[in-house]
């Protein structure tokens, strides 16, 4: 007990290693136990194509437009949907935040989350179908003289992702939004910031970390869209997303090796987008959003 310098634990703590840090361990161990081996196996498998070369699958993927085009098709659906979802969720969350009786509306807005892709797809086929209530109403109102063709195409998938993705985005956004101390908004108001400026200068920067995560998770969800692309889309053409390619390789051609390779490419593309967003997230302020005092 003669040392006066920091002890080992303190030095570790200064580097961020202490009891609290250990809390990641159970989670990390669980993932390592359940995920790492299967993942590595999949990775290994992707380098074992049927033709025997190592890079065969990847080579083939980037050679055949039928395969590599799916990346673009997928991004073309998933990114706009994700952005639109956020663009809708944020203002609505801001409105709902101010309401006294927000529970009912919240429940209704979150409702689509319970539907599942199948119900949404079925519903869309019915509702937007040529004989559905939507088309009938549109025609009855004389807005259009023939049934709008929404399903079985890009917009079908887009809408279905919007419907299933919105509650997800909204729920997260609402909870992030309400975590921000109202006094900050008030302070901004006394300094002459109108609603738009308050949003831009105060809420947005404070929300960004949360919105970034929300974006990533919604994006990942939209990116791996499979059932709705098949059910309400045009899976042979405009909505032939990359997960369809992977699915076909695995379950129609039973070429698990190619499927793994496609899945790896799919993961890599997502990783690029997610890493970009999360990387940008480290640039913005992250920390308590309560009124700082003391």
């Amino acid at each position, binding site marked *: 007990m003669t040392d006066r310098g920091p002890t080992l634990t303190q030095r570790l703590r200064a580097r961020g290693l202490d009891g609290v840090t250990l809390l990641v361990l159970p989670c990390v161990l669980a993932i390592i136990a359940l995920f790492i081996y299967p993942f590595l196996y999949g990775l290994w498998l992707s380098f074992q194509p049927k033709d025997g070369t190592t890079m065969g699958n990847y080579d083939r993927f980037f050679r055949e437009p039928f395969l590599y085009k799916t990346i673009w098709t997928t991004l073309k659906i998933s990114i706009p949907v994700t952005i639109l979802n956020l663009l809708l969720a944020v203002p609505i969350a801001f409105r709902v935040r101010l309401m006294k009786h927000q529970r009912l509306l919240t429940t209704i807005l979150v409702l689509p989350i319970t539907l599942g892709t199948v119900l949404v797809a079925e519903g869309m086929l*019915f509702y937007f179908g040529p004989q559905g209530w939507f088309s009938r109403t549109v025609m009855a109102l004389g807005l259009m003289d023939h049934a709008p063709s929404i399903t079985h195409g890009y917009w079908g998938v887009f809408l279905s992702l919007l419907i299933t993705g919105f509650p*997800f985005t909204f729920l997260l956004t609402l909870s992030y939004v309400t975590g921000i101390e109202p006094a900050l908004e008030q302070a901004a108001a006394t300094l002459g910031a109108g609603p738009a400026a308050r949003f831009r200068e105060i809420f947005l920067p404070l929300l960004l970390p949360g919105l970034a995560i929300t974006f990533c998770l919604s994006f990942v969800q939209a990116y791996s869209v499979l059932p709705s692309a098949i059910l309400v889309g045009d899976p042979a053409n405009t909505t032939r997303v990359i997960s369809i390619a992977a699915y076909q390789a695995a379950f129609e051609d039973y070429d698990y090796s190619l499927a793994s390779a496609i899945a790896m490419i799919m993961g890599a593309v997502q990783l690029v987008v997610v890493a970009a967003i999360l990387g940008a997230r480290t640039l913005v302020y992250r920390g308590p959003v309560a009124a700082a005092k003391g």
Partner: protein
Amino acid sequence: MRASSRTPLTTRLWAFGVWSVVIFFVLNLLGLIGSVVTSSFATRWLGTWFPAGFTWKWYFAAWDEFQLGDVLWVTFEVVGWVVVISGLLGVPAAYALARREFPGKRFVVLLLLLPLLVPSVTYGIPLATVLYKVGFGGSLVGVILANLVPTVPFVVLVMIPFIEQIDPRIESAARVFGANTFKVFVYVLVPILMPGVLAALLLVLVRTIAMFELTFLVAGPGSQTLVVALYYAVFAAGVRAVQSIDAMAVVYMVTTLIWLIIALRFVNPTQIVARAKRDTSH
């Protein structure tokens, strides 16, 4: 300028616009759900505003065909465990990641991102093999373990920004007054984080109910969940009445809906900090 009314036109227009979008969305949503629900009760519905007649028979048929009683029970069990375990593993890990900068943190984050990024096609089969090897395959435990792979990282990622939002001095206060990490969680963090935890777990719940691939690969005869039955109804070969698919979809929706309503009944998704202060904001 002397403004005389409370809210200027632009603000009112904006609010009107937002509400219009909400109402439009909700109306169409209800129409969409209504279509399916109506159809699931229809005897025949061909090109008219409303079906020719109504019947329960699709539900009874589905109930018998898939032994839905058992399937629902298994689904509830699986979902319950997955939600609890991913909460228990995920929230503390998110806490550590939000509050500490430590060497290797990036690596841990990547490790947690991967299960969300990589489609289950790749790792589903080997994962199932592993689970069968250690004897969990075909059992409830196996299904639960497999479902944890995507949900735990999900909880972690959702929770990180929530935890960052909370003033660490509140935790400091709890520690000063004798709360260890566990008690800080139970008494301070979790209650304050409740909206976040709720949101995350609700989403986990939905994802678990919807997780077909991993569940299917690991499930045995007694551990099938609802989504397997639903996917069978939709994707299986053979003729199937649209109404019976709709009936399954409605059962599926109701199952999830029950959880949603229970969850929202007890916890408000808006943060308590804001609620206490709502009176002072306008």
